[in-house]
């Protein structure tokens, strides 16, 4: 059991890591040492980090497996982008507009998290996982089939094509079905991304320390015992789940305001993306916030770092992933690691030298 003081120190280290990385990145950019490709990855890294940290709330702290996290990100991304498109001419001050978009994305995603969570959190384990996967796919598929336009009469929605929207002459189509949303103003940047990471961290780390957070962890550790001491299981589960969804929504807004064309495919918002976020969480250590940050950053950078391998790069990525999982979690390898760890070797070295001295 860690005491409160060390826990506080622990959190400071986490904030510190984020800030120091930010400063280093800024120095590298201003010194011209960072390639254009790498600069383009800075915001995606922020998105991955926020997603990983927020999923860790569901998987690590609440202890429920969710395979539909990208669905909430999709909701945030779409609603945020729609808002920005509608307000493009009304609010011209982009930071304010982006802030409102973030708020809307978070609220919508959080609300859907609440709606979905209410029936679904009754299920357990792998069944919950499959239902969240199903919800993620539903959101992605609906987003893919959706047409939405705006004119002076308001918003028009259709599931068929852009003609059936019946727009007035001056109307514009915002979502063009599978082509998605194009040319969203690029309001997001690295600094905002890092600020959002810090806010996410602040929310989750404080939640973990609070009374609510302890109740959530009690449910994870032993549901029945938690219920028997009067913890309202549904309330706390819903709280954690919808908070996690809202944070994913924020990541989605950040994502949608950083790319020129937003489409809902399996790789962006479908099950592949949900799985990728889960990979960050598990690789970084379930329930370990700092681990999630590092794993998300490394795995987002890895395909770019491996670019010199050209065609083999995704193959190597897969092998590295399997190897890292084995290295991190296999009981035999953990035992071997402990035997051959630096600390252990040093101790052995000390022992042998001290024996010599006695002689």
């Amino acid at each position, binding site marked *: 059991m860690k005491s409160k003081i060390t826990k506080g120190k622990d959190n400071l280290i986490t904030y510190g890591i984020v800030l120091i990385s930010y400063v280093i990145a800024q120095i590298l950019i201003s010194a011209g040492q960072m390639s254009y490709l790498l600069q383009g990855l800075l915001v995606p890294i922020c998105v991955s980090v926020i997603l990983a940290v927020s999923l860790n709330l569901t*998987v690590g702290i609440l202890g429920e497996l969710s395979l539909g996290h990208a669905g909430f990100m999709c909701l945030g991304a779409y609603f945020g982008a729609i808002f920005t498109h509608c307000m493009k001419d009304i609010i011209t001050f982009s930071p304010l507009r982006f802030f409102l978009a973030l708020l809307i994305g978070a609220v919508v995603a959080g609300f859907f998290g609440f709606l979905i969570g209410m029936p679904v959190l009754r299920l357990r384990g792998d069944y919950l996982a499959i239902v969240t996967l*199903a919800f993620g796919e539903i959101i992605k*598929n609906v987003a893919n089939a959706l047409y939405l336009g705006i004119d002076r009469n308001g918003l028009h929605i259709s*599931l068929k094509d852009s003609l059936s929207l019946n727009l007035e002459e001056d109307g514009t189509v915002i979502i063009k079905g599978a082509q998605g949303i194009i040319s969203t103003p690029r309001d997001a940047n690295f600094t905002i991304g890092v600020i959002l990471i810090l806010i996410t961290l602040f929310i989750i780390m404080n939640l973990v320390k609070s009374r609510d957070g302890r109740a959530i962890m009690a449910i994870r550790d032993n549901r029945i015992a938690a219920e028997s001491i009067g913890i309202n299981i549904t309330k706390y589960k819903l709280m954690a789940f919808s908070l996690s969804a809202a944070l994913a929504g924020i990541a989605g807004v950040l994502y949608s305001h950083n790319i020129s064309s937003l489409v809902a495919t399996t790789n962006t918002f479908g099950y592949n993306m949900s799985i990728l976020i889960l990979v960050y969480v*598990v690789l970084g250590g379930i329930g370990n916030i700092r681990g999630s940050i590092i794993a998300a950053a490394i795995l987002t950078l890895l395909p770019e770092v491996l670019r010199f391998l050209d065609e083999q790069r995704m*193959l190597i990525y*897969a092998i590295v992933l*399997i190897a890292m*999982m084995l290295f991190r*979690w296999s009981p035999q390898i953990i035992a071997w690691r402990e035997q051959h760890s630096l600390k252990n070797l040093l101790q052995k070295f000390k022992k042998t030298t001290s024996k010599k001295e006695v002689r």
Partner: protein
Amino acid sequence: MMSFLNHLIRGISLGSVYAIIALGYTMVYGIAKMLNFAHGDVIMVGSFAIYWGVSMQGLPPVLAILLSIVLCTVMGITIEFIAYRPLRQSASSLVVLITAIGVSYFLQNLALLIFGANTKTFTSMIPLETLRFAGGDISISGEAIVTMLCCLIIMTGLTLFIRKTKPGQAMLAVSEDKGAAQLMGINVNGTISLTFAIGSGLAAIAGLLLCSAYPALTPYTGSMPGIKAFVAAVFGGIGSIPGALIGGVVLGIIETLGKAYISSQMADVIVFIVLIIVLLVKPTGLLGRKLQEKV
């Protein structure tokens, strides 16, 4: 009415493929308590093996099919040995899940590297003519007949295997209680390997049937049917063999009818909505066992 029957038959046929794939998920889940996300990609590898044998090397189809089954079986055992076995004692089942995803990426990208990203046209391996009834209004393709027959044979065979043979009984015992099974002298590791071997062999057959009916073959061919089959397995109650059959067929019918009568884009949405409703009413699937909770 006639077109409805045609769609229904197509749905049952598609569902039979899902059922065969779902068997692999269900058996592995029942025995190793892990979701083998790489299972869909084993299907893809099996299909590519047949494609390689027939279209690129000119082997006779029967030989290519046998080759594909052997390859998938060996691959299933190897994957289990390298990637899953070292993690079996680890803390969380999630860890194995992620490793399975790593294996899935690996297989997809290996296929991408060897065969390229272009869509390959898979020539149907089933030489049966289309059957026509009611003056040609109802037609059943040869692929559909073979698929449904295969599904029935596999289901009965597997049920008999588990009920009547010693290795089958060992599988039941291991899925019930690994520790106790080991104490009774059952080779747990061997039994799990056998499960993976059977599941992967079935995946090769499923790949053959799937690609004969839907001839476009890419490195990602297996991933969506894999997910659907996983849904089917959960739908019928994961761990149950008749459940996989029912789940698969129901899913296939819903998907085909949804595509035909509502919207091709919304078919998947309907499938998933039905799944959610079923799970909310019966949280362990249609034929799943209800777990008693002990305090």
